[in-house]
């Protein structure tokens, strides 16, 4: 109430004053608030003359004093300057102006002015951030960095607000119902024993230990640190955390190997920082600065890379698959493939084209998607289930009608997937010469023994929870039409 009144009052006052002003010059006047109640500093101007309260209404149009705002701002300047002078004296007193300090101060000032100019800039900025900002060379990079800081600050403030709210609610509840002996909430009575979190942890731990003894190894190649920006490195560390947790929780985990992990490298430092020293030591994975080719026999290793010419048809439990732990926001085609070529390793890519109607985006996947796919294919042997982890935005469902038509006998010959003889031949080839076999066909398998047949079996019985297409529905209709007409009426 008081605020509103104040607002009304001041508005009226200022209007009145304006009338006086425009006719007879400046008087004593005070400025109050905007209607929202934002209190502004009031200023006073005085001149020698008195108010003439019976001044007439000003004519609109030409007679408005358009440059009035200038005098208002100038008079304000005079007041401000005296304050600023004091400040400057204080400043000069205590600061020893080194050139770097000067730059930092200027940067800070620039940030504050950008804030006033309505740019997306954080409200508070730490010295460290100012330093990073001053080191950025271009204006656009500075603006981008400030925008990033501002958005981050917004998120932080939001979550802080939420916490405050929760705390306030709890306190209120406690104030209303103080927790005394009589007032305690009743203990739940159940015939089921409560399952405790650490029991689950222990179970997962046993599984992890078993995987480390007997499980199939899965290698993450951590040698790409030099090819990533700091941001990309952070992202890949986040993805590695997800990889580890996903693997730990799975029914039959892999034995994770982090190869090429340099003890002093940024990769390891960040991992240890994110996990904490103790948790990192307790983790049931193997880390080594050695290369994967030194840890495992060459013929067992298969590098999974999107640029490989070979398609991985069947998941082979006797192989050791290698995944390059790299995040490349600007795509670096052939980076991990080059590594595989140099080390003369066998390579393979996931059968994305064979199963998915690919629409947009590169055929690179994140590390956590990779481990989910690999865990699922290992557990179920079904690519349909495994490739469900490929982001939906990149594709438009699985190929289904094609497979149905193949079942119906009108197989498309161009697939080249269903020739066990060729598979056999190529398998032998790949076993003898891991890389650079000369033939280099588009579809040389990296499959193991007897998998061609297994593949056939799975391939012919696709999982049917896949979106149906125009083709298949029409086929269905045809089929149902046939069933509707009795056999004796057909030719």
């Amino acid at each position, binding site marked *: 109430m008081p605020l509103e009144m104040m607002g009304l009052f001041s508005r009226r006052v200022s209007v009145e004053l304006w009338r006086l002003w425009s006719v007879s010059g400046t008087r004593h006047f005070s*400025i109050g608030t905007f209607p929202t109640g934002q209190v502004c500093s009031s200023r006073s101007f005085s001149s020698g003359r008195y108010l003439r309260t019976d001044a007439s209404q000003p004519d609109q149009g030409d007679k408005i004093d*358009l440059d009035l705002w200038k005098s208002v701002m*100038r008079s304000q300047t005079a007041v401000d300057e005296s304050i600023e002078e004091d400040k400057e004296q204080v400043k000069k007193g205590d600061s020893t102006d080194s050139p770097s300090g000067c730059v930092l101060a200027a940067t800070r000032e620039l940030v504050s002015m*950008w804030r006033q100019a309505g740019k997306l800039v954080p409200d508070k900025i730490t010295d460290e951030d100012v330093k990073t900002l*001053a080191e950025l060379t271009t204006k656009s990079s500075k603006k981008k960095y400030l925008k990033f800081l501002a958005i981050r600050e917004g998120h932080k403030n939001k979550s802080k607000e939420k916490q405050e709210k929760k705390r306030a609610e709890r306190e209120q509840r406690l104030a209303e119902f103080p927790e005394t002996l009589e007032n305690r909430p009743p203990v739940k009575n159940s015939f089921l024993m409560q399952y405790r979190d650490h029991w689950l942890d222990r179970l997962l731990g046993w599984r992890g230990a078993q995987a480390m003894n007997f499980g199939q190894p899965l290698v993450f190649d951590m040698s790409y640190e030099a090819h990533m920006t700091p941001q990309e490195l952070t992202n890949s560390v986040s993805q590695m955390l997800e990889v580890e947790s996903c693997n730990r929780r799975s029914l039959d985990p892999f034995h994770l190997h982090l190869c090429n992990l340099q003890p002093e490298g940024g990769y390891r430092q960040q991992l240890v920082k994110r996990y904490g020293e103790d948790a990192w030591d307790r983790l049931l994975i193997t880390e080594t600065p050695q290369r994967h080719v030194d840890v495992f026999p060459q013929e067992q290793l298969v590098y999974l890379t999107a640029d490989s010419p070979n398609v991985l048809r069947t998941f082979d439990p006797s192989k050791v698959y290698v995944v390059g732990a790299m995040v490349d926001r600007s795509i670096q085609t052939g980076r991990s493939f080059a590594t595989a070529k140099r080390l003369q390793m066998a390579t393979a890519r996931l059968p994305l084209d064979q199963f998915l109607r690919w629409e947009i985006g590169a055929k690179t996947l994140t590390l956590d998607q990779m481990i989910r796919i690999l865990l699922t294919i290992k557990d179920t042997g079904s690519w349909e289930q495994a490739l469900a982890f490929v982001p939906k935005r990149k594709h438009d469902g699985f190929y289904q009608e094609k497979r149905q038509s193949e079942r119906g006998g009108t197989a498309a010959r161009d697939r080249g997937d269903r020739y066990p003889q060729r598979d056999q031949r190529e398998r032998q080839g790949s076993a003898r010469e891991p890389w650079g076999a000369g033939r280099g066909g*588009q579809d040389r398998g990296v499959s193991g023994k007897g998998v061609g047949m297994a593949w056939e079996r799975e391939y012919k019985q696709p999982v049917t929870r896949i979106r149906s297409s125009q083709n298949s529905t029409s086929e269905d209709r045809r089929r149902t039409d046939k069933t509707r007409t009795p056999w004796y009426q057909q030719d």
Partner: protein
Amino acid sequence: MGATFLFQARLCLYGLSQSSGIIHLGKMCARTMCTKGIKPGERKSPPRKNDTTIRQTESFKVRQMPSFPTSVFAAGNAKRTTEMLKRKTALASLEQEDAAGDQPRRRGFKTDGLVAPDRPLSPTEWKKQLEEAPCSPERFDVHMMTLLFKTGAELDIAKSLLTFVALETGTMSYQLLLQYLTLCVKGGHDAEALDCYQIMRGAFPALETGASSLFIKAFSRTESWREALPILRDMKKVIAPSTRNYSDIISGALLHGAAAPAWQLYDEVLGEGLTPLPDTWRALFEGGARGGRAEEEGGMSPAEYGERLLGVLGYMRDNQVYPERNLADAIKTWFHSLPGHHWRGEWTTVSPKGVCKGCGSELESIQLTPEEYTHLEARVMADIIQGKDVFQKTTAEELESFKAFVKRKPVFDVVVDGLNVANIVKGRQSEMLLAVVCELERQGLTSLVLGRKHMLRPSASWDRRNMGLIQKKAHCFFTENTSEDDPFLLYATLHSGNHCRFLSRDLMRDHKACLPDALTRRLFFKWQRGHQLVIHGTVAQGRRVGFQMISPYDTIVQSTGVSWHVPYDDSVDRSSYEVPQSWLCLTNKP
């Protein structure tokens, strides 16, 4: 469109061979100009009358079509091609419909519902507007000012808004003043901007970059342009000023006859590693044409000024800058204004053989000097093929075997990008490749076909017999399927010597980008323009294959002492990898 091209091409040819009235394109046998021995300095000789006879004696010849205007490097070609392809796929019609259906994009939704007044309002009226406004009252002033700027309202309206705000709150936000300032500078109210400067300087501890740039622009247009210098100095403390800032001050200084500071700032721009704006150059040339006031402080003698301007032309030459038409105009005017000389400028074009149609002199050759050539060869090997990781594009063994292959074989005349050439006609790739190889063989050229190993696997598109014939008629090298073949193509061509060409439609931009420094990239582009053959038009079955002519002259700013030739950019469609076709010819005739 094709008909017009043909017509234009005929026109060009008509100009060339005055003797024969009708030219049959198929029989046209323009020899390429292999000016191996000729150095740029030696080319001051008057145009040779009997051009063809001289050139026929040179060893190398490929049957070529005229380059103008369909050469892949001619300005606007890329745009034309995309449009043609669009029309072919009938995408154009769809897109046009889309464009018609699209409303102009809605932006600045915050100003929706606000109505800009058409006259200055009194504070009472503004108050009424404020109460009726749909946006929040605290942001009303800023939104209204934005709207005024967008609608291009008069300055008085904005002033009345400021007055209202000042009366209402006693102060003004920086953002509001900044927007007002933008309005002033856009409308050219420089005096008002200067007032604003005083006020903002007083009211706020510092200025941010946006306001500084606006003040620099405003000050540079007035007598007090020197005021802009301290602002620029302040900006430098936190941020590298943009070329636009420099350009504003330089033109301001030149407008007021202070040449020396302007050139000093120009040097600063170059020192920062920035490319000056065309506006800067224009201001410099226009300043030169006006004539400096040498006596005054900050002036410069005309001779010195002229030297500096010639330096600017040298910069354009070194950095392969093509001025736009208005800058070329300024250059022409400056040359005309030079006292004691009789420069005559002319807008002209250059004949396909590299003779200026204006003055009849021959332009610089596109061939590299031997030093440049060896430098480029080394760089291509080191940066394009090997790079940081040899395995990225090939393998170490493959590269070695290719080097041995090239050493073993005789020197090639043409290197063919097998897959690129073959894929011109989808479905019968091997036939296409065979046709090209046959044509090259008929012309008696040693050719190398580069491909990938999968081409040797017989299939519908890669016929076994055709591939066998190709291997008989030409030398062949097939890379792994996982390797790139273009780098090998470049290497083989460079290794075979200056006379060797390569045949591909690929503009090799991704490989050019692998080169680390701008100088080598320019060298590469120059070499590419002089050595890349492109198949002309479509190739029908059973007909001979023709090649686009390689232009024998370099498109670059050049001088012979008595003349200047400046290629200028008069088409909006020019892509960065194309060169302009129009020239400014300046001759000094006493």
